[in-house]
């Protein structure tokens, strides 16, 4: 037991850090925003350091309910990094509405997501998922006085509760028909003939998880929540929980129900193609940049699922690389959305107002163009590479029709990305002024760094990324 505790340092640090920040908030009042922010940042950095220190260990703790391995480590690093940035960017956005609860909730959400990414038992899976979800519901409605934010929170909560119910139902079926909640035991029990109960269990579990990664047809909440939630929270939703849920999905699909390929593969293929196509088509008519990014995230999840559908180590490597590149792109684009303010300091979210943006803020427009072309997967931008990896995995797993369908649908996706670029670059200037000085040095540095990395420089890291994702993915096979 004590030995087990030494292996879950990241979780311990987050728990303690979260509680300390909460106490600070209770006693120091809401004014000391900088203090809570700092506490949360230190906690996340320490947790990330702990993950790094444990990187390479491959073991399980607490009677095999939680794993400590490189796969979880990889996912946790991404989750903590995304949470870190979402803490950093918050105060400028919330101004006076910034409260101690924000960093605390982010910390607890990060803790939950860490547990999701390293769970290897249906019980820990559910605990992690709910810890994350409950924190997220509150975060979505963080702007209490704002109608859209409250609506987003409520919608997220109702649909999230429904998804949790579906997931729990699936979990109980799996447990009932295999006699265990442990992933490895479930996998062993699936070796023979599948009975209808197990298939139902698999379908329900995957459906519950598909809600969390917002794969079609469980995506309906995404555009509304993305639009309504405060922008830093949207940035958070678009990155960290996606990583956690995708990692969890991979663990469940490969680790728990892996042997029943016939049962899960066609579901994943359907989710993948439906997400790619609906994400792309749904984005076309959007006039709000946050809604558009919501559809873009649905679309990108579809590509990750192609890698997962392959069900091979190569496919999982592709998923992990995709998560990393997608996270960098998404954070970069949301940082730019945060900077879209008119001369009165109001947040601008409408896409038509971006007309001629490249002439008002050439640097930001160029970075946004890089992010969008990268999301569309056009080489030489680095967004091409993870797409290539998942398609390669699909072709190598003899899923050529899936790869062809996915890649052809990517052209539909390219349409709406280049349509925003058209608005920013080709159209005449709109009436909206975009004064300079809207971003802090840190924000600008993050935007610049991610834009540079996503242009050709990222290609130099392919070797490192391949080694990292291979180490992480190998754990599952």
């Amino acid at each position, binding site marked *: 037991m004590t030995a087990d505790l030494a292996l879950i340092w990241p979780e311990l640090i987050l728990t303690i850090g979260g509680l300390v920040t909460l106490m600070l908030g209770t006693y120091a009042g809401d004014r000391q925003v900088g203090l809570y922010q700092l506490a949360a940042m230190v906690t996340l950095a320490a947790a990330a350091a702990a993950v790094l220190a444990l990187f390479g260990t491959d073991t399980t703790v607490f009677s095999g309910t939680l794993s400590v391995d490189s796969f979880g480590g990889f996912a946790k690093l991404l989750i903590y990094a995304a949470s870190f940035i979402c803490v950093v960017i918050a105060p400028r956005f919330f101004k006076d509405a910034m409260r101690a609860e924000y960093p605390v909730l982010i910390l607890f959400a990060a803790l939950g997501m860490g547990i999701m990414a390293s769970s290897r038992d249906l019980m820990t899976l559910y605990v992690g998922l709910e810890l994350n979800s409950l924190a997220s519901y509150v975060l979505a409605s963080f702007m209490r006085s704002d109608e859209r934010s409250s609506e987003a929170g409520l919608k997220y909560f109702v649909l999230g509760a429904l998804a949790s119910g579906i997931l729990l139902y699936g979990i109980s079926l799996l447990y009932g028909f295999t006699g265990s909640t442990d992933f490895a035991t479930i996998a062993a029990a699936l070796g023979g003939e599948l009975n209808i109960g197990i298939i139902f269990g698999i379908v329900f579990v995957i459906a519950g998880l598909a809600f969390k990664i917002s794969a079609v047809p469980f995506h309906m909440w995404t555009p509304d929540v993305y639009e309504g939630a405060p922008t830093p929270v949207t940035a958070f939703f678009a990155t960290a929980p996606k990583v956690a849920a995708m990692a969890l999905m991979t663990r469940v699909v490969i680790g728990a129900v892996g042997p029943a390929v016939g049962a899960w593969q066609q579901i994943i293929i359907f989710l993948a193609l439906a997400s790619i196509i609906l994400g792309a088509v749904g984005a076309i008519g959007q006039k709000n940049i946050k809604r558009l990014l919501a559809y873009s995230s649905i679309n990108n999840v579809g590509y990750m699922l192609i890698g997962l559908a392959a069900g091979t180590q190569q496919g999982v490597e592709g998923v992990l690389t995709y998560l990393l590149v997608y996270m960098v792109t998404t954070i970069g684009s949301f940082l730019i959305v945060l900077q879209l303010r008119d001369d009165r300091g109001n947040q601008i979210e409408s896409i038509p107002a971006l007309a001629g943006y490249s*002439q008002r803020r050439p640097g930001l427009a160029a970075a946004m163009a890089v992010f969008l*072309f990268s999301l569309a997967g*056009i*080489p*030489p931008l680095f967004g*091409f590479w993870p797409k*290539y990896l998942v*398609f*390669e995995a699909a*072709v*190598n797993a003899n899923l*050529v029709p899936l*790869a*062809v369908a996915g*890649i*052809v649908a*990517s*052209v539909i996706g*390219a*349409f709406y990305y*280049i*349509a925003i*670029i*058209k608005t920013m*670059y*080709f159209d005449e200037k709109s009436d909206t002024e975009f004064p300079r000085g809207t971003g802090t040095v840190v924000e600008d540095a993050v935007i610049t760094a991610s834009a540079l990395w996503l242009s050709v420089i990222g*290609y*130099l*890291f*392919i*070797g*490192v*990324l*391949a080694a990292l994702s291979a180490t992480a993915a190998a754990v599952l096979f």
Partner: protein
Amino acid sequence: MSGVPILSLMLAIPTVAAIACLFAGDRNARLIALVATLIDFALGVMLWANFDIGGAQWQFVESAPLFGRFNYALGIDGMALMLIMLSVFLMPLCILASWESITKRVGLYMAMFLIMEVVMIGVFMAQDLLLFYVFFEAGLIPMYFIIGIWGGANRIYAAFKFFLYTLLGSVLMLIAMIAMIREAGTTDIPTLLNYNFPPEMQTWLWLGFFASLAVKMPMWPVHTWLPDAHVQAPTAGSMILAGVLLKLGAYGFIRFMMPMFPEASAQFMWVVFALSMVAVVYTSLVALVQSDMKKLIAYSSVAHMAIVTAGLYALNQQGIEGALIIMLSHGVVSAALFFCVGVIYDRLHTREIDRYGGLAVNMPAYALFFMLFTMASIGLPGTSGFVGEFLSLAGIYEASSTVAFVCTTGIILGAAYMLYLYRRIVFGELTKDDVKAMPDLNPREWAILAPLAAVALWMGVYPESFLAPMRGDVTTVVARLAPAKPAGDAHLAAGKPKPAAAGHGEASGEAHHAGGAQ
């Protein structure tokens, strides 16, 4: 020359200059772009001068395992050399052509052109399949901006159509490439060139590549993006589009499809022939009725490219050499024709043919150059067009006389629409007042047209300079194709010499000797 990574240098200089242009003022951006493209041209000349004809197939080879899964591998053969020369030759002329006509966002414009140059020569240099794909696709981005920002009235439609059309084709090629890499276990192009893919797999791979390259080429019926893109693009954009971008498709044909999938190439020969025959006749007829100068030249480009595809798929030495020469010739001539359109467009701001007439009177130098390029486009002996068309038609004839017959009508129709265009613009009465007021060529326009004219004539009079570096590579491709190639219908055989008639044998024999001794 060993030690200097001249190919990398040629990629690096425009890249650095492009970044500099983004931050420079209008005037400086023009200068930076011109200087950078001229340096690249000088490097290109050095490349040609140091190219060892008949030496190793791949020269100036560089390779560095920079990208983990694939290599930064560069190298050129004779065909790539010639196409790189075409690109670096046209680039400074394009920059000069936009010197005065582009006035807004000059820095971005020049940066886009320089990136375009990097991408184009990168395509010809790449020796790694994935590196090739990255360069090949990357060209979409700068061209999208060039058409979309500095194009004509309907530029946004044209930019979208160009981008999505060519992207749709390219992605299928990517799937084919993934399958190839899986099968052969390497991304190295020289290795893949000698890898024998199973014939039934070749069929699918060929179709995947064809989907992409036929759009890029462009072949009928997927050519419709081209007239839109050309008409809306700024003058220099059309020059580079017609001059080099259209050659990427044909380059892909001869670099990948023919040597890598010889069985499939033989199998699909008639598909290519059929599409080419339709294209030659159909697009020539369409060109005949255009009232927009740029559209007319755009359709003529489709017709010329159709002769290129037919020549390539004759699968013999003459046909392929001829197709390559047409590619080079069309690169120079169509760029020049688009510039000729640009010259009068800058003066009158319309592309309507009917708005002009009688330019021979007030713009004699312009009329002369325009005449030369019109003739080169038709294929008049002495100009570059003749050499390519003659060679490729001879090659096509060897493969099929029917195809040769149909393609030759393209030349007649080509003469019809080009001469008709020339008559309407340059000859006739000079009646319109605004046309009367148009001044003749200025020194900048001279500086652009003169080199283009010189090269068109050089290629027409002494094509061996251009053919010699490519001959060995064409022979290699033909040798790869030989086992699969179907027999042509032109059973060529050396004629029997007529037995010398008694009586005047002495005299003619002497004459023959005298002739042979010269």
